[in-house]
C-alpha cells in the first residue's frame, strides 16, 4: 500500500491558500475579545481553582478517611497547578486524565468553561 494520495484538497485550494496567507501582513491584527480578557479569565480561573482546592482540602482534612478517588498526592498535585496552563500541562504530562480533573472540578461546581476558554500563548 502506498502512504500518499489517500487524502486530497478541493481544486485550486493551494493557490487560494497562498493568496489568503499572503494577505496576513495587510490585515490589522486586532486582539479578539477573548484574547483581551484571556489574562483575566486565567486569573479568575486560578482564584476559583485555588478556592476550590483549598475548600476541598479543608473538607477532606475534616474527614477521617480519604476517599479512594482523591488521594492526598492527587490533591497536592492539583494544588500546585493553580492556572489553566498548569491544568492543561497536567493532562498531558501525568497519569491524570482530563476526566479526573473534570470530575474534580464538576464535583465542586466550578465553572469549567473558564478553563476551556482560557487561551495561552507560546513565545517564539
Amino acid at each position: 500500500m502506498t502512504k500518499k494520495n489517500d487524502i486530497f484538497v478541493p481544486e485550486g485550494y493551494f493557490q487560494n491558500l497562498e493568496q489568503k496567507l499572503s494577505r496576513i501582513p495587510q490585515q490589522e491584527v486586532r486582539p479578539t475579545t477573548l484574547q483581551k480578557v484571556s489574562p483575566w479569565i486565567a486569573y479568575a480561573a486560578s482564584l476559583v481553582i485555588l478556592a476550590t482546592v483549598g475548600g476541598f482540602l479543608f473538607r477532606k482534612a475534616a474527614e477521617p478517611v480519604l476517599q479512594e478517588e482523591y488521594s492526598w498526592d492527587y490533591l497536592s498535585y492539583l494544588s500546585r497547578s493553580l492556572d489553566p496552563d498548569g491544568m492543561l500541562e497536567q493532562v498531558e504530562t501525568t497519569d491524570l486524565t482530563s476526566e479526573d480533573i473534570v470530575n474534580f472540578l464538576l464535583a465542586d461546581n466550578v465553572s469549567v468553561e473558564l478553563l476551556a476558554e482560557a487561551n495561552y500563548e507560546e513565545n517564539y
Partner: protein
Amino acid sequence: MKELEQVFNGIVKEYSERLYWHVRRMVASHEDADDLLQEIFLKIWTALPSFRGEAQLYTWVWRIATNETLNHLRKERVRAALRMQSIDAEMERRVEGDPYFNGTEAQRELMKGLAKLPEKQRQVFVMRWWDELSYEEISAITGTSVGALKASYHIAQEKLKLNLSTLEVSK
C-alpha cells in the same frame, strides 16, 4: 516592514503546502487544517520581527507549526473532556466522514489508528512517515532527543501495527 513582508511571503510560498499536509494528518480534517494553518501563519507573522536567526528559518517555522498544532489538539481534548465526550470517537468520526479522502480501506484504518495516538506520538509518526523528516530534523524542531524520538516512533508503529496487518512500515 516591506522587507519583513517579503520574508513572510517567501515563507508562505516555501512552507504553506508542506505544513498543510502535516497539519491535515494531525487534525484529520481539511476545514480544521485550513483554520489552523491561518493561525500558524498569523503566529509566524507576529513572531517574525523577533526571529534572531539562532535557529534555521526552516526549523523555526516548523517549530511554530508543530507547537501550535499540539496546542490546538490539547485544547480540543480538554474541551471534549469538559463536554464529557471522547476525543478518540470524535477523531474517528472525522476520518470516517472526511469528504476529501479517496484512499483504500487500509489507509482509512491507518488514519483512524493515527488519530487515536497520543498527540506527541502522532506528531513523531507523521513527521517521520509522511513528512519524511530525518530524526535529526525532528529533534531540532521538537527539542526532543533522537533516542526518545526513535522510541516514540517505535511505540506508535507498534500500536498502528496492532490495528493494521497490512501496514508495511519499513522505517
